[in-house]
């Protein structure tokens, strides 16, 4: 526990977290500081490309084997199942309708690639290796949760027949295509490819992440400011408890898979994190009755900073306690 708090403290005082806090402060104080939409989207492309590519290069030696497929299958299962837990919790702690709860649940079954990336950075800093293919697992976990959410909404009688176009959209979502594509490019070109683009995808990465987190802080802060009244105590509690539930499930899966310490932490982080890029758009199309602010404020304004500051060090401490540091 002491260990966690020390780490949380250290983690709090990195430029990344402080940039997020600065953005949040600026938005809450109603400063006109803002990042152009095109810049935010381009940084997201850059970060995802770099994460995917680095993961692919790491796997280029070992290649795709049974371990990789098993980990992906486990990730997919988590993404399918976690929304059911989230849905149940939400119906208990909040007054959200079934459709609204289903929409929020979809976000929590899916993943946050920036949380994943920040955790990778923390591991790298402490010299802990992780399986390179975890980035493929992250891509695989993006969408199954959406399907569960649609089923949960349909069960409540409020969902509708899903039009065929939606499946293609969900599976060929830009972030999935980019993550998997960059991963494949990294695998194919290996260390040679890395040598060519290292100065772009590795060196400035943490700095770009800082600016990106500044923007995320701005968006989260604006969301929190607009969502006063929407988010009661029950939902706030959900935003903190659900990542712990997810992390526990991720830990179970990691132990079953026999992942390394680093891989275990990443699996916990994926399960614990909530989407704010791909899932919101899908929910607007499929469950338009659900107010998008609720899910976005929870995932970006509460769960995301919780994972960044407390979650990652806590998951690492737990994994170290179990697997031995």
């Amino acid at each position: 526990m002491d260990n966690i708090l020390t780490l949380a403290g250290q983690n709090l005082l990195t430029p990344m977290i402080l940039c997020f806090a600065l953005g949040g402060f600026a938005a809450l104080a109603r400063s006109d500081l803002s990042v152009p939409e095109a810049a935010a989207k381009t940084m997201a492309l850059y970060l995802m490309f770099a994460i995917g590519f680095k993961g692919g290069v790491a796997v280029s030696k070992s290649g795709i084997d049974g371990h990789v497929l098993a980990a992906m299958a486990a990730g997919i299962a988590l993404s399918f199942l976690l929304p059911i837990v989230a849905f149940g919790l939400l119906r208990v702690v909040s007054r959200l309708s079934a459709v609204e709860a289903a929409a929020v649940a979809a976000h929590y079954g899916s993943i946050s690639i920036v949380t994943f990336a920040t955790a990778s950075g923390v591991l790298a800093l402490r010299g802990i290796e992780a399986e390179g293919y975890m980035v493929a697992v992250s891509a695989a976990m993006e969408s199954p949760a959406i399907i569960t959410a649609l089923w949960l909404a349909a069960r409540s009688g409020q969902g509708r027949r899903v039009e065929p176009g939606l499946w293609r959209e969900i599976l060929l979502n830009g972030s999935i295509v980019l993550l998997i594509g960059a991963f494949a490019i990294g695998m194919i070109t290996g260390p040679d490819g890395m040598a060519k683009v290292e100065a772009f995808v590795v060196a400035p990465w943490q700095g770009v992440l800082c600016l990106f987190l500044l923007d995320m802080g701005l968006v989260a802060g604006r969301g929190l400011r607009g969502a006063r009244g929407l988010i009661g105590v029950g939902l706030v509690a959900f935003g903190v408890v659900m990542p712990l539930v997810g992390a526990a499930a991720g830990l179970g899966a990691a132990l079953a898979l026999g992942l390394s310490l680093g891989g275990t932490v990443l699996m916990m982080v994926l399960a614990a994190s909530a989407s704010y890029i791909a899932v919101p758009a899908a929910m607007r199309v499929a469950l338009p009755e659900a107010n998008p602010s609720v899910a976005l404020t929870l995932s970006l304004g509460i769960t995301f900073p919780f994972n960044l500051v407390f979650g990652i060090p806590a998951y690492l401490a737990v994994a170290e306690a179990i697997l031995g540091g």
Partner: protein
Amino acid sequence: MQTYAAKRVEILIEAPMESRLTAALTAAGVKGFSVLPVLGGAGQSGRWSADGQLGRAGMVAVICLVDPARLEPLLDAAFGVVERHIGLINVTDAQVIRKTRF
């Protein structure tokens, strides 16, 4: 200059629904449309802004000039998409210069 009566239809719709709307318009025989960006706005669900957005969020404005005779099917098609979703449709009387294209 000779002008012709036309209808100017403007549809404010959520960005993730854009492709469905334009597909429905095309299916309804609409010959052309243009999509304009929207930076932000406010309504029942509060204030929003495109600034710093990461996903395909926010709204777009679809503008469509049509022959008055083709207005009904256009509105039916647009309303079919917008019905369950956030979306505002407004129609104004306009004069256009060239009769083709509508």
